[in-house]
């Protein structure tokens, strides 16, 4: 009798083991069918955001908002990372700004979220979301929380500089950042570069000069010096071209050599670059340039205030 019971229970055991295997094997195809049905359904929005209000998420997190902030950040990173899926959406990264807003409301101290998040938002499509306005909003939120953090102002300046091409505004933001205690010494130079590119040449020159005089870093000093010398070279070359043009107006040709400008009374001496090496001069075009032997480390200045400078010269040398 007991043998029969044991055999029955053994069969039962095998039966349940087989049932378990069968169920386990059938789960995957069943789930795949459910997923396929969901994918076909037009009512499912892949951009669905369960909670759009940062305040509501904060209240509902029941004291675990720090972890919920992490989950939203992971979701934002994953959302941004799925480029193939994003390419199919009508508006790419529609929810990216909202996800980042919720993350930083739940945990406003997540510096990396402001920095990386604003970069995701500001980058043009298809690399980024192409939403520089949202990037500025996120950075302003970060700056409001961290008013002494130069890195957020640095990023904000970049959004103005690269996305909006508003060099003056970028320069102003960077200049503001350079006044923060924690700001690195090169920040002022960056502000100068942006401001000069935006046309504020004299401000830029003053900033480079101050940086040259005050910086303790040899590299920063050298960089400032090279910028100042490059500006000086540009202005000298534009002056030579201008005066050669004046000479041509009077004599019907450009001067054959630069010393003709001296003899004609336009210049007091034959001009040389700041390292003392004479400029190369082309009598056919009336244009001058730095000699190959120059010791000036010329930096191609990424802005052009030539026209403004010519007008200034014209006022000094009336007809």
């Amino acid at each position, binding site marked *: 009798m007991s043998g029969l019971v044991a055999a029955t229970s053994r069969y039962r055991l095998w039966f349940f083991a087989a049932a378990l295997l069968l169920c386990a094997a059938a789960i995957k195809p069943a789930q795949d069918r459910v997923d396929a049905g969901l994918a076909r359904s037009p009512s499912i929005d892949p951009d669905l955001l369960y909670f759009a209000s940062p305040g509501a998420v904060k209240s509902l997190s029941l004291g675990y*908002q720090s972890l919920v*902030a992490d989950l939203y950040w992971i979701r934002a990173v994953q959302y941004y990372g799925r480029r193939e899926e994003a390419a199919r959406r009508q508006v790419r990264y529609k929810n990216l700004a909202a996800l980042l807003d919720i993350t930083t409301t739940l945990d406003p101290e997540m510096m990396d979220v402001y920095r990386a998040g604003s970069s995701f938002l500001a980058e043009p499509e298809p690399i980024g979301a192409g939403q520089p306005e949202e990037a500025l909003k996120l950075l302003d939120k970060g700056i409001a929380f961290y008013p002494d953090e130069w890195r957020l102002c640095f990023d904000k300046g970049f959004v103005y500089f690269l996305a909006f091409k508003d060099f003056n505004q970028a320069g102003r933001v960077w200049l503001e950042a350079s006044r923060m205690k924690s700001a690195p010494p090169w920040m002022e130079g960056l502000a100068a570069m942006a401001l000069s590119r935006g046309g504020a040449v004299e401000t830029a020159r003053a900033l480079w000069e101050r940086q040259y005089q005050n910086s303790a870093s040899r590299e920063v000093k050298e960089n400032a010096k090279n910028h100042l010398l490059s500006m000086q070279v540009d202005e000298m070359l534009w002056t030579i071209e201008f005066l050669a043009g004046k000479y041509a107006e009077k004599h019907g040709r450009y001067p054959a050599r630069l010393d003709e400008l001296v003899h004609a009374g336009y210049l007091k001496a034959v001009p040389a670059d700041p390292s003392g090496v004479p400029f190369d001069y082309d009598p056919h075009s009336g244009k001058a340039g730095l000699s190959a032997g120059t010791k000036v480390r010329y930096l191609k200045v990424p802005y052009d205030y030539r026209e403004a400078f010519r007008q200034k010269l014209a006022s000094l040398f009336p007809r």
Partner: protein
Amino acid sequence: MKWGPGGMGHRGSDVPMRILAIARNTFRENIRDKILYNLILFALIMILSSIALGQLTLGLESKMIIDLGLTSVSVFGTLIAIFIGISLVYKEMEKRTVYALLAKPVHRWEFIVGKYLGLLFTLLVNLAIMTIGIALTLLYQGGTEPGTYVRLLPVVYLIYLSLALTTALALVFSTFSTPALSALFTLFLWIIGHFNADLLQFATLTRSATIGWVAKSLYYVLPNFSNFTTLDSRNIIQGAAHALPMDAGVILWITAYGLLYCGGLVAVAILVFSRRDFK
């Protein structure tokens, strides 16, 4: 009041010993009930997070380990406090073991206090092991400043205080209600306790003086769990994750609040349990 048999003849000096004996037995019972199995799940969460976070996120790995670890400490602790707390007394009555216990020279209040302390000790062991687990995961992850490890301690302490309060709530319900209802009541109060600040805001916003008074009274009567999660208007776990200093003075006041509230609830549990008629 119905005190335990022979209660009047007890020697006062034996009281701590009797309470400790009950607490020790409660702790042993919890271990026998395999409460500490949650530590395996916790270890798995910590190991998986240390492996997976690098793939899932961009920076902030250490912060996320702290968030995940401390949240797990709090969630596991709360679940244990509720689901073990609700059966602390009820199980003894259901199994009728309370009769055997109260037949011995043990006061009813000693029984309640002993039970409460036993579960608190179980939670303390749990929390201590989990905190070491978080520290080890951070150590494995690397790049964590030494100060961060120290900053975990006040947060774990505040979580422990909130668990003591949750346990006390469950204990009160356990003395007169079924486990299912006790769990529901405790859970509701735990959730309401996180929204307590809204009551105070409501009291200031309402135009009715009566409703304002009721809301304000409820604010003080209901357990304020947000006391244990927010410090200087900052979430405590968040503070630890960013290695920010905490105000020791405020922690002292939170401790006072926790001890007073827990003391009051244990007193309620004793009063209810003392009035129960065991036939």
